Structure formats: structure tokens, C-alpha cells
């Protein structure tokens, strides 16, 4: 019995991947996201009900560095938080080490891809094409 338990204990020792940071950051980023997401909704949906967010409106807003940073922070936090959440799923429901590794790698890749995509999308908005009123 003792050896069986020893093997069992080893499963909890020395993995190096404790999950503490992810857990903690999930909470921190959640609270930060609360501010960001309410801001995002306010600006996109409540601020001027009925107006259609045309390219110009958005681009106009994004012309300022502040808004650019706002949207970037939002995307980065949301991505991090959301993908972290998916990792939680994986740890809960996927039990083979191979699959766990594969899915983690996959979502790291997806995460980085979308980060790049976000940068490429938000940064070009800074130069309004054809002027604000065009």
C-alpha cells in the first residue's frame, strides 16, 4: 500500500506547473476586465443608441492613442483570461497527458495568432482612410 501511495504523492510533487499564477491572474484580469468591458459596451452600445458604428466613427475614436491603448488592453486581457479559462476546461475534462499538451499548445498558438491579428487590426485604424468625413 505504502508504495502505491508514494506513486500517488509523486503526481502532486515537482510538476513545476502549479497553476497558482493562472488562478490568481484569472481573478485580477477578471476585475480589470469588468472595468474594460463596461467601458467597451458604454462606448459601443449605450453612449449613442441608434447610431451605427461606421468605419469613420470607429476610426475617429481610434485616432487617439488613449483609445488605441484601451482597445488593445481590452483585447489582450480578454484573450489571456479567456484562453486561461479554456485551459481550466482542459484540466477538468481532458485526462490524457498527450491530449492536454496538444490542446494547450493549440490554444497558445490561437492566442498568439489573435494577438497579432488584434495588433494588425487596431494599429492601422490610426490613419483614417479618406478623412473623417469621407
Amino acid at each position, binding site marked *: 500500500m505504502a508504495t502505491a501511495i508514494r506513486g500517488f504523492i509523486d503526481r502532486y510533487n515537482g510538476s513545476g506547473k502549479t497553476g497558482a499564477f493562472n488562478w490568481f491572474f484569472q481573478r485580477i484580469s477578471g476585475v480589470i476586465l469588468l472595468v474594460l468591458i463596461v467601458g467597451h459596451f458604454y462606448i459601443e452600445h449605450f453612449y449613442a443608441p*441608434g447610431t451605427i458604428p461606421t468605419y469613420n466613427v470607429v476610426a475617429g475614436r481610434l485616432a487617439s492613442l488613449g483609445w488605441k491603448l484601451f482597445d488593445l488592453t481590452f483585447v489582450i486581457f480578454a484573450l489571456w483570461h479567456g484562453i486561461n479559462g*479554456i485551459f481550466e476546461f482542459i484540466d477538468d475534462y481532458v485526462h490524457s497527458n498527450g491530449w492536454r499538451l496538444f490542446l494547450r499548445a493549440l490554444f497558445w498558438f490561437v492566442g498568439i495568432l489573435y494577438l497579432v491579428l488584434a495588433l494588425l487590426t487596431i494599429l492601422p485604424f490610426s490613419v483614417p482612410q479618406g478623412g473623417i468625413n469621407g
Partner: protein
Amino acid sequence: MAYYRPPAKYRWHAGFVAWLLHRITGLLLILYLFLHEWLISSLQSKSSFDSAMAVVSSPLFKLLEIGLWAVVIYHAVNGIRVVFVNFFHAAERSNYNINVWVFWIIAAILFVIGAIPMAKGLFY
């Protein structure tokens, strides 16, 4: 000897439901984020952007947006409750169940506050 493990069943209660919804809404949100970002990034020209925006400004999409707001506000408020449980002992035996309901009510109120301007948008 062959033991047997049937799938687990358990009676629902507020905390259980709250967690399940949190999971589902979290998943919906990240999937929406992927979709949203992919869509916007593919609309790099003004004309395509504006025509897409016209589509998503139709009443149907406005309704879906209100749904999105519900998902967001539920996830956000429940997330704050989780933080309260983790760091401020918001799960005493005497109040753990009530707290879930309190946060649900807060979520409902916030949802309505946000949904009103959004609903107004439906009629423009």
C-alpha cells in the same frame, strides 16, 4: 472484481447552477471574441466595414447584442462573486446560497440598465 461507475447525478442548487452558467458564458464569450476579432480584422476597408456594420445594426443583430450583454453581465457579476468567495469569505454556511441570489439580482438589474439604451437602439 469489476466495479461500476455510473455518470454522476446531483440535485441542482444555486451555486451549482451559477458555476455551470459561468462556464457556459465564459466559453461563449471567448468564442465570441474569436469571431468578433476575426470579423473586424477581415474588414480592413471602409466600404466593407460599413456594409458589415449595416448588417449587424439590423434589429436581429441588435437583439443578439442584448443577449451578448446578458452573457457579459452574468459572467462579470458572477466572476466578482467568485472573487468575493475566494478573498472575502463570502461563502459562510449561513449565506452562501443567499449570496448567489443576491448576485443574480444585481446581474439582472445591471442587465436591465444596460439593455434599455440598447433596446432603444432597436427602434431607430
